[in-house]
């Protein structure tokens, strides 16, 4: 237990070293810009619009549009999306997946600036069924994932203006 603060400090050290070099303001701006960029990228993929009238079932492992209020929740949500996108064979989403990785790194920087412990999100068990779903309904998965990711990102953009907590 005594090594807890030390471990925590050591864990934060790489991020703190970044913060030392990069102003937090720039990190915030870059985070917002990157979110907008990803949203625009999804917009550019023509088939990502999903009718709001229809609810797609069976894809519960894709995070819904529930408000994400904290940085850790954001990171967790993005980790799931990143994992889903990485599994998709479409070329369009590879770049978005890379962007998500950058975005998560930025969230970690923001969290470290607020001294928030933001553990690396691990793959969730729910994604174990991803492989089977992808084989059966690749299109649905891609469309729904991108659509929900877009919504989540827009929600995060709003939350970032409100200075979200840890």
């Amino acid at each position, binding site marked *: 237990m005594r090594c807890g603060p030390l471990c925590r400090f050591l864990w934060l050290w790489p991020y703190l070293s970044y913060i030392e070099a*990069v102003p937090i303001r720039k990190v915030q701006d870059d985070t917002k810009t990157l979110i907008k960029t990803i949203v*625009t990228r999804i917009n550019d993929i023509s088939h990502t619009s999903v009718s709001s009238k229809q609810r797609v079932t069976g894809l519960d492992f894709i995070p819904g549009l529930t408000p994400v209020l904290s940085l850790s929740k954001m990171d967790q949500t993005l980790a799931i999306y990143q994992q889903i996108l990485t599994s998709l064979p479409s070329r369009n989403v590879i770049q978005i997946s890379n962007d998500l990785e950058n975005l998560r790194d*930025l969230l970690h920087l923001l969290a470290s600036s607020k001294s928030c412990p933001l553990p690396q999100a691990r793959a969730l068990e729910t994604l174990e069924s991803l492989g089977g779903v992808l084989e059966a309904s690749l299109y649905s998965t891609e469309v729904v994932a991108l659509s929900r990711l877009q919504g989540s990102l827009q929600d995060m953009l709003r939350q970032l203006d409100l200075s979200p907590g840890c």
Partner: protein
Amino acid sequence: MSCQKFCVAFLHWEFIYVITAFNLAYPITPWKFKLSCIPRNTTHDFLLPAGISKNTSNLSGHYEAVVETKLNSSGTYLSNLSSKTTFHCCFWSEEDKNCSVHADSIEGKAFVSTVNSLVFQQIGANWNIQCWMKEDLKLFICYMESLFKSPFKNYDLKVHLLYILLEVLEESPLLPQKSSFQIVQCNCSVHECCECHVPVPTVKINYTLLMYLKITSGGVIFHSPPMSVQPINVVKPDPPLGLCMKITDTGNLKISWSSPTLVPFQLQYQVKYSENSTKNMRKADEIVSATSLLVDSVLPGSSYEVQVRSKRLDGPGIWSDWSTPLTFTTQDVIYFPPKILTTVGSNVSFHCIYKNENKIVSSKKIVWWMNLAEKIPQSQYDVVGDHVSKVTFPNLNATKPRGKFTYDAVYCCNEHECHHRYAELYVIDVNINISCETDGYLTKMTCRWSPSAIQSLVGSTLQLRYQRSSLYCSDVPSIHPISEPKDCHLQRDGFYECLFQPIFLLSGYTMWIRINHSLGSLDSPPTCVIPDSVVKPLPPSSVKAEITVKIGLLKISWEKPVFPENNLQFQIRYGLSGKKVQWKVFEVYDAKLKSASFPVPDLCAVYAVQVRCKRLDGLGYWSNWSTPAYTIVMDIKVPIRGPEFWRIINEDNTKKERNVTLLWKPLMKNDSLCSVRRYVVKHHTSRNGTWSEDVGNHTKFTFLWTEQAHSVTVLAVNSIGASSANFNLTFSWPMSKVNIVQSLSAYPLNSSCVILSWMLSPSDYNLIYFILEWKILHEDNEIKWLKIPSSVKKYYVHDHFIPIEKYQFSLYPIFMEGVGKPKIIDSFTQDDGKHQHDAGLYVIVPIIISSSILLLGTLLISHQRMKKLFWEDVPNPKNCSWAQGLNFQKPETFEHLFIKHTESVTFGPLLLEPETISEDISVDTSWKNKDEMVPPTTVSLLLMTRDLEKGSICISDQCSSAHFSEVESTEITCEEESRRQPSVKYATLLSNSKSGETEEEQGLVNSSVSKCFSSNNSLPKDSFSNNSWEIETQAFFILSDQHPNIISPHLPFSGGLDELLKLEGNFPEENNDERSVYYLGVTSIKKRESDVLLTDESRVLSPFPSHCLFTDIRILQDSFSHLVENSFNLGTSDQKTFVSYIPQFQTCSTQTQKIVENKMCDLTV
């Protein structure tokens, strides 16, 4: 008890049997072992009675001494054995000399006993055997070699190997049946050597190989005991390859070799080398696990021989064979390192050991040179040991290639002696700039770099390596030990291009170029790039340009590109569309702005507009310019003004009506903004009020002016409306008589500009402006006009004025009340003519005046003298025989006077060479005058004759003279100063002195002179010698007929002379005593060849027209000394002077003139 004992013994036997079963097969050792066989009986004899079978497991052998005594036999024993003799065989080795004897029982079971091998060695058959697994792990080899000498030597040797691969030996405690064994025949050579190959799958290399040998030799069959081995334990590698020796950078000898790649375990190596130097000779043997060995204390001029072999490092194995020996000889000078590849700015050192004449040079005596041209300062030397010198090069500059040598040669020298070997120093500038650019879609980053800086390093390969950080770049980029290569492709421009796709927008890509070379590898300074900061956006889209209606501004609108999401700044440029657009550039820093307006000078022109963008924070690049957008020319506003117009009035005097035609120039775009759909003429009269007439697009309109005053206005109408500011013109009868322009003058500046100035008189009317109208005089079809402000008093009219035309200028004052009376001048042409005459007048008039005065004076003086002299000496026709019948006052032709005497005088050739001259001839118009007194005449000649070049001709009419001036404008007035007597003077113009024409000239002169002399009674004909006349012919001119073509166009000579001569012809008739009669023979120029004066055949003068006679023509000569001398012969009378008409070839000086007048004979009666 015995039963009990038996039972115990039985149990004990069984136990022994079980134990031996497990140890039945002989374990093959990695080293050589032996197989020895002896006949069965012999074995049993000493084995079984000894009762030691119970102790067969005892490997120590307690019966060595017994065996030695019992089996003390020789090889001859075996030779006596039959073929059916059964042998007992055993294996033993040098390490374990106990022989395990194998015997087959009837039941197929075997039992083993241990005997000292010495027994077999002495009495049995012996073989050396070695088995190993090849390095490829696929072949098991057993090699056997017969040791016994004679018994079976002469028999065929057949060896078979029977084997079986067992996964685990322990699983089958009993030996397998013989039928399960596989058999291979071994290859035996004549040297009693056999090699048996057993294929073993690699996967079964850990299995147990159970086998035995069946040797048939000389009818005797030897069965070896079973052997067992795991192939993995007897692997024999191949000898190491790639043996290499070199001097290391630190001065050691490095022996290196390559390790085999097939063996699944690590190897150890044994290196044996020998050093043979002048000092000593040493040998060493070292075992190492690495594939290289460093040998220190390497000396120059030594040779080293090395061999290496290998073996499994951990576990059992067999040493490979020794590699082929390698010899390496060190040079007399050893540089270490011998070559250095380094980067600019780095520090490097070379070491050197120098052996000179079998003696190693002391390091203190070593000096270093660069390229054999430059001694390296001693401050850079360092003594490392007694024999090792070191030189250090700090902060190196890039090597400049010298021809094909791309390195610097570093020499280690012994004071003043350098060995030819040198070290090579390659210094490469590796500052390679890597520039990256992210595309407008933010999906790929292209990095470019040029290898030009390191092209000099032949044999090098370049590779871009990078390492990506999760976010951003560190302040000081560094080369990370873990990096990835990136494929780059050479482009046509010599740059390499590397593509990163997809990208991590905010990650830091640290990149550098690795230069790989045989001498080592170099890394360029690393560069860190964040793709997000090197974005070149797409150009703005939907760029539109228009001139806003009624506002009149150039409005440019655009849409920002989709990416990046950052705030953007924009640059707008616009210019008049054309081939070469002169752009005006404006910056827009408001990221939200989507349009901008700019005032432009020309609202009716087509503007090209382009927009580009860049991140507002300055990061990244400017996008390309957008596709140009163009404005469309359309009506922006109502026309600024109506057209300026003027009128042409056609007056009908019979009626009080005038047809007025209005003229105007089409309104330009700048005034019409930007087009004119039609023109409207608005009339106003007091009687009819106001009305309008649509003219359409015409620029001319005619109406009838009937009323006292008629006002018209011309309006221009476009799609927006009619012009608001318009010009009015009022035609008023009363006003047309108002004259306020007092004077008007036009001064031409050049053919394109005329200055007009005018004076105005005061007027009560309201002057608005002037209309200036001009046209070529008498040509009404092309009237030009322009409007001039009322305040102007002088105006430059620019037009193409034709100088030979006459222009009429009219200046109309335009009053508010109407058009006033114009001032019309025709001064342009008059002024111009006068101007043209002025230049001539300024020159000619003074000449004429001065000439006139001079001539007048001459005339008066000569008139008085001639009056006295001439008529006194005129021959009396009645008293002069030759003159009888001749009318001196009116001769019909010139030849009539002289023809009778032409044969009496001959002429010599002319002395002077002909020369071509140019002389301008102009005959004044005063020749036309037919007055009695011919006014002074100036004649200038433009003749292309050489004869007249140096002559001057003075033509005088009575006392007046016409001067034939020289080309050089040496105008000489030859004033006749005959003192006593009037003289008849002749001059003949000589045009050439060609020998072929000499006779003509002579004839002419002879004739004239002879006649002249004939008239003089006092002169006998004989007194003229031909010789003297030959000389005197120089004094005569003959006007050349060789150049009539040249002369005639310029010389209206005959016409003028005709008139003159007509005038002369009247003198005798008038019987004017006061007049002198002078004659001059001149060829009519117009008659040319047809009127040749003298022909060769006739040697007489051709008919000479009377109109060619001149009076009082003097020909002066400034150089006629010959003539002067000869003239003494002619002079017979002191009282009479001869004034010769001498060809005036030279300038007539005053002195000459005097001589002539004083000493020449006068042709007087």
